[in-house]
């Protein structure tokens, strides 16, 4: 059996190492995301009903309902959300990912990323910037107005920009950013700068007014997290084909909806293994504390699933000022991730680790054996809808997710008669 598992994992790692995530364009969610419809809202993490949704996710759904013009006040929108007229489904079931609440509705513009090695695509909304934003559960008039600006100005300018520029190799851009102090989950300053450098000449060449071009450039420049919404679909596009490798014990999804943390393992296909999401240990913005925090939320830990983000924290020492700890802690986090992964990334090299490749390919057997849990660095949303981000920090998936997955994996092998009695 050991050989079958090792061979399957070798295949899974080959897929990860060969992945070629490439930005190919932008589109409107309902026109490009498979299965998306007016009455279907996507959200981060494993499946969750309206009744079990956390505050920030409900807040984001309320914002989405108002943005789609299905209600005009937050109260009406909350009623609409609870009415059963809307269906909810994870982004991950539709080749998409979303940061924090991760709500995607039909009208939203999305980046389109294609894995050139395997032909699959991944989608992600455009990053809204910091402050009061839908992804953190805020739904005030300024949130909706900003989403409308993104749809009517940012989206058409960027769409034409990519058409002029042509595809952008995100693997190379991420590899460069990792050498420049980003881990591309909570620090995207270098990657965003590289993206702007690449896009600026093409933005200038678009047919839009100078005012619009300036507004787009200023917005991209004002938001260090612009690239997060590209590193996420890059990781998703890379990991998705791993989900089809039979008998592999490699984790191809980690995601949270603010209520539950869920993982998916290659051999076990689309099945989620969930447990209550944890509260994040981190640094809180002035005036907020752990009492205000919602449990862990967002699809952004798809970056850690690939081996970047928290797994590559050693390469982003500046991030500890945002999530807490010291640069030494960052090296310790990355070092410990080699205990639970299968290979070192051939593309994503980490200078402070003597250019070792990022720890890649989480094996559920190793997590159980060593009791070392994946390290995720993440933003913290307020537990009440409508407030937004209150801090950032470090969090882990619950061990129960991995224990359930291992049990299901052994049952699968027993059912197929592959285990000796």
């Amino acid at each position, binding site marked *: *059996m*050991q*050989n079958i*598992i090792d061979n399957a994992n070798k295949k899974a790692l080959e897929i990860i190492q060969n992945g070629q995530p490439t930005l190919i364009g932008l589109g409107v969610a309902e026109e490009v995301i498979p299965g998306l419809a007016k009455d279907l809202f996507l959200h981060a993490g494993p499946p969750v009903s309206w009744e079990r949704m956390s505050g920030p996710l409900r807040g984001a759904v309320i914002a989405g309902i108002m943005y789609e013009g299905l209600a005009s006040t937050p109260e009406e929108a909350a009623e609409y959300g609870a009415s059963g007229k809307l269906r909810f489904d994870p982004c991950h079931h539709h080749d998409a990912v979303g940061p924090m609440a991760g709500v995607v509705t039909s009208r939203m513009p999305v980046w389109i990323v294609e894995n050139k090695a395997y032909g699959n695509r991944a989608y992600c909304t455009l990053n809204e910037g910091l402050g009061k934003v839908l992804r953190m559960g805020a739904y005030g008039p300024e949130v909706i107005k900003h989403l409308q600006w993104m749809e009517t100005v940012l989206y058409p300018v960027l769409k034409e920009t990519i058409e002029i520029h042509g595809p952008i190799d995100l693997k190379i851009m991420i590899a460069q950013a990792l050498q420049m102090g980003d881990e591309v989950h909570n620090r995207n300053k270098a990657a965003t700068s590289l993206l702007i450098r690449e896009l600026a000449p093409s933005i200038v060449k678009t047919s839009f007014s100078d005012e619009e071009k300036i507004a787009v450039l200023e917005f991209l420049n004002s938001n260090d997290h612009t690239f997060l919404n590209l590193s996420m679909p890059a990781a998703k596009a890379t990991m998705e084909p791993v989900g089809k490798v039979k008998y592999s014990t490699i984790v191809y999804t980690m995601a949270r909806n603010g209520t539950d943390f869920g993982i998916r393992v290659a051999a076990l296909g689309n099945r989620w293994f969930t447990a209550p999401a944890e509260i994040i240990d981190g640094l809180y913005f002035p005036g907020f504390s752990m009492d205000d925090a919602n449990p862990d939320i967002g699809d952004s830990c798809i970056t850690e699933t690939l081996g970047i983000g928290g797994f590559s924290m050693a390469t982003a020492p500046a991030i500890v000022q945002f999530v807490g700890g010291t640069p030494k802690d960052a090296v310790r986090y990355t070092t410990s991730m080699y205990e639970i992964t299968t290979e070192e990334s051939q593309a994503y090299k980490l200078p402070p680790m003597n250019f070792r490749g990022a720890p890649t390919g989480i094996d559920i*057997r190793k997590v*159980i*054996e*060593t*009791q070392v849990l994946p390290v995720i660095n993440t933003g913290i949303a307020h537990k009440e809808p409508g407030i937004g981000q209150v801090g950032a920090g470090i969090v882990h998936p619950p061990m129960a997710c991995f*224990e359930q997955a*291992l*049990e299901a*994996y*052994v049952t699968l*092998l027993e059912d197929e008669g*592959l*285990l*000796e009695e």
Partner: protein
Amino acid sequence: MSVNNLFTQDLKVINIGLKSFYNDLKSQDVTAIQVNWKPKAGGKKKMLDLLSKINKSN
């Protein structure tokens, strides 16, 4: 060096396992380092059984 010499030298301790032993030594200014070690699968019998099932057969 005879074993008895050990008792006349300063202690330098490598502590494996429970961190409280390490903390006690540090509080008495004894040179010590902590090894981050846990029993396999945290000693959970059910998990050990599952791991042995997939690790033994070929």
